[in-house]
């Protein structure tokens, strides 16, 4: 439906996109006792780190191979080796997640080869898992880095299981995309558990970056999914993937373990959740709990009450493909129109979005297209555009650095959808323009003969 176009500009102004490596690093942060490591220069790490600290308002474990100019030219084997040894000695993680960056990819470092050499040379590090993902900054975007990383995790950390192996009837794998927040994960876990099922979430940010005060200090990630749990994912009865970006990971899981998967391209909206709940009821063989029935009914009511305010509204959205798909579909269902859509990277979903054009571009493009819209929806960097456009601004996505509770923003499930209706509906109500005596003025060219006559009187 939508024409997918690329911005023809040379210069990106006010970027919407964030790089692959930090998407990759965030995925690693959903593992227990993990240390994400950037193979790149210090700056690559520090920018990512600061971005996550501002977004999550938490300590972020992220290390770097600290490539110097000389090291970059000569190749990074020594730096990778040194970094792994140092991390192994200091932070003692169970796993080190290594993501490449633009610098090392430009040089063409063969990190897979390096790791082989390091393994041979350092048998004392055998107890530490090393997962490497190639994530050049100059290609793809944040959600791609996340997706590739989860796929690698499945390929390297899940134990293969024969297709006819015994399955645990209660266990369900959940593979969330990069746009699924810790709050969303909590909601999904609740829904899955309501059917007596046990979700195994990879990666699980809900335990690591959900904004809680940890019991003690750990230099690595806290919470998250453990390596043992990942290894056993092949024994689950089903895999649920959330977001089109997770298809390769879900397919990898099926290929390796025979666990079938169902992919939900979004879990915001009534019908999407009906399908989700139907799947859970089918998997568990249990009736839908009353709690969830009530939540559905509340959502239906919220849709009825809310549609007055959404109908005919023009929305401008800047978000990564899966989040853009989720929001645009949901806005359409509420009667609003997606008048401007800007995204960061390719996805098979883009051309299916119900709007004229989806542009792979920046916030300047979005701002230009958002003129005359009723709402701007993007991450915190859109706030100045919204101000200039004088339209309300709904923050969603990463980074969200100027508001509290980014990790808990929840838009999945019947309940999350209901609250999203209220939150955005209230913005429309609050920004409603009070009529003035001039609101319905007649067009200027009509003359106003009489007014002049009256003035002369």
């Amino acid at each position, binding site marked *: 439906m939508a024409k997918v176009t690329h911005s023809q500009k040379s210069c990106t102004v006010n970027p919407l996109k964030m790089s692959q490596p930090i998407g990759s690093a965030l995925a690693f942060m959903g593992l227990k006792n993990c240390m994400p490591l950037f193979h790149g220069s210090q700056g690559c790490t520090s920018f990512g780190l600061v971005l996550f600290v501002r977004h999550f308002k938490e300590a972020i474990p992220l290390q770097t191979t600290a490539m110097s100019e000389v090291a970059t030219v000569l190749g990074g084997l020594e730096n990778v080796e040194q970094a792994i040894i140092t991390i192994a000695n200091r932070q003692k993680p169970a796993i080190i997640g290594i993501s490449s960056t633009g610098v090392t990819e430009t040089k063409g470092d063969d990190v897979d080869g390096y790791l082989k050499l390091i393994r041979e040379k350092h048998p004392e590090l055998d107890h530490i898992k090393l997962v490497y993902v190639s994530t050049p900054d100059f290609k793809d975007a944040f959600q791609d880095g996340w997706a590739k990383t989860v796929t690698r995790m499945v390929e390297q950390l899940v134990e293969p299981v024969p297709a006819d192996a015994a399955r645990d009837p209660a266990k369900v794998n959940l593979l969330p995309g990069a746009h699924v927040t810790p709050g969303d994960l909590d909601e999904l876990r609740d829904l899955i558990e309501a059917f007596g099922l046990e979700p195994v979430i990879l990666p699980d940010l809900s335990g690591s970056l959900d904004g809680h005060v940890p019991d003690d200090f750990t230099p690595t990630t806290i919470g998250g999914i453990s390596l043992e749990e990942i290894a056993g994912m092949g024994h689950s009865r089903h895999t649920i993937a959330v977001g089109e970006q997770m298809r390769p990971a879900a397919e990898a899981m099926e290929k390796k373990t025979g666990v079938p998967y169902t992919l939900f391209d979004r879990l915001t909206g009534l019908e999407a959740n009906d399908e989700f709940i139907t799947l859970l009821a089918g998997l568990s063989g249990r009736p839908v709990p009353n709690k969830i029935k009530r939540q559905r009914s509340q959502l239906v009511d919220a849709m009825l009450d809310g549609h007055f305010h959404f109908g005919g509204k023009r929305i401008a959205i800047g978000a990564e493909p899966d989040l853009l798909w989720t929001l645009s579909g949901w806005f359409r269902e509420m009667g609003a129109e997606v008048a401007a859509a800007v995204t960061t990277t390719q996805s098979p979903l883009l051309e299916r979005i119900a709007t004229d054009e989806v542009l792979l571009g920046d916030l300047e493009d979005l701002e230009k297209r958002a003129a005359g819209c009723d709402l701007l929806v993007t991450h915190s960097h859109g706030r100045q555009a919204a101000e200039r456009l004088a339209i309300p601004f709904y923050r969603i996505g990463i980074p969200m650095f100027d508001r509290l509770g980014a990790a808990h923003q929840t838009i999945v499930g019947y309940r999350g959808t209901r609250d999203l209706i209220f939150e955005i509906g209230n913005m429309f109500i609050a920004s409603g323009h009070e009529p*003035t*005596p001039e609101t319905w003025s007649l067009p200027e060219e009509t003359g106003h003969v009489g007014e002049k006559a009256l003035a002369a009187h």
Partner: protein
Amino acid sequence: MSSLSSKIQDVFNEPGCGKNQGKSEKERKKGCTKQLQPGGAAGGCAFDGAKIALQPITDVAHLVHGPIACEGNSWDNRGSKSSGSNLWRTGFTTDINETDVVFGGEKRLYKSVKEIIEKYDPPAVFVYQTCVPAMIGDDIDAVCKAASKKFGKPVIPVNSPGFVGPKNLGNKLAGEAILDHVIGTEEPEYTTPYDINIIGEYNLSGELWQVKPLLDELGIRILCCISGDAKYHDVACSHRAKAAMMVCSKSMINIARKMEERYGIPFFEGSFYGIEDTSDALREISQLLIERGAPAELMERTEALIAREEARAWAGIEPYKQRLAGKKVLLITGGVKSWSVVAALQEAGLELVGTSVKKSTKEDKERIKELMGEDAHMIDDMSPREMYKMLKEAKADIMLSGGRSQFVALKAKMPWLDINQERHHAYMGYVGMVELVKEIDKALSNPVWEQVRKRAPWEETTWEERADAAIAAEAAALAADPELARAQRRSARICKCKAVDRGTIEDAILEHGLDSVEAVTERTHAGSGCTGCTGTIAGILDSIEDWRPGSINEPAKQAA
């Protein structure tokens, strides 16, 4: 209270009211207060009516003398818009307590007025009487007089305690208050031959401003709108207008008529709802002004403006025609019921339906009108299933009605548009009509309906399917049992105001050989309230062969 009761009597005798003139001397004396059915009343009280009528006067302090319920539960509940002061939105009440009830609340009232004047310095304070102080004998007239003298500011008593009657009576009592105490007390800076008053328009959602630019262009000045976006000074000077328009609701007829009587300001009854009505209203205003001495060329300019703006409005509606073609609208309202709204909706390709009307010929319109008069009362107490049944039988795609029925409509998952006073959109004048069509299109095209009507995946049947089954079962039961069908038919409430059911009317017709609506009314009182059901009564009379016991048609009719 004696002055209040004579006031009420005076209002009842309103000769300007067509309905009143149609009544016998005896009926007129009884007044138009339909005694509300205990246990079955949902409307507002006289205080509510008085407050609604006057609170759009934006720069005065509206002080409610009474316990907290009267103001505390109701303040800031209307969308009248102001181009200036918003003092009217500030809730002032004496919030009387037990001690006041025992010892009288007059002192507290006096002090309240004093505080308001000290803190807010409004051009005037309006004091509203409510039931409790009226019962304990607080004389607000005296307090207002004393306060006015002491503080050198108009303090206006509005004597309209809730229990004297319904909202409509309160509107009129409010009119009396400003006729007695406000109108004619100040003089305008200047006058023009083009000065008019608009009476009974409250500027809800800023609707007045959809029309004002038209008048502005013609050089016609709204000297005062009573009371939308009015300032105290405007109301006080309004006796200098050359002509007046009374907006279709009859709520303030007494103001229009008495201003004609006292100040010689001719008025006409008109409406700005709908394209034709707006044009007619503009013509009438110009006509009256010309009769009062404005230059005759005003009419030429008026016609030119009408031609231009009508064209603009039809052009505005045009794009929706195709999208709305064949869509059916069930219009249920006691509010915006001008027939030119119907004309505009039809022009936009919409079809108006009643519960039993297929095509809106002139006769059918009468039937819809009759139906609407009824349903305006009925709809509020409808269960979702009944609502669903009605909408289904009418095969309507969308319902236009007042705000209170919205939740019933929405729970029945039926697109709905608010066209009564609580609405948020302005639908007056030419632009307003285009806006209405646009809103209907927006509501109809919202994909939300398709989703919310879907059954929950775990449900065997939908709510609607169960309702269909129940309706079918009910029809089958009636078909199988003629006695039950008869009882069902006879139990239908025909006159809501006087609580008369169909059986009572049928019996009276048969027993006394009645053959006219008047005779039925005389005998049963049905049709003596709002008179909305007189058409239905006529229908019962006409169809006597269908329901008379022993008639050949009866069993067949019952089965249907």
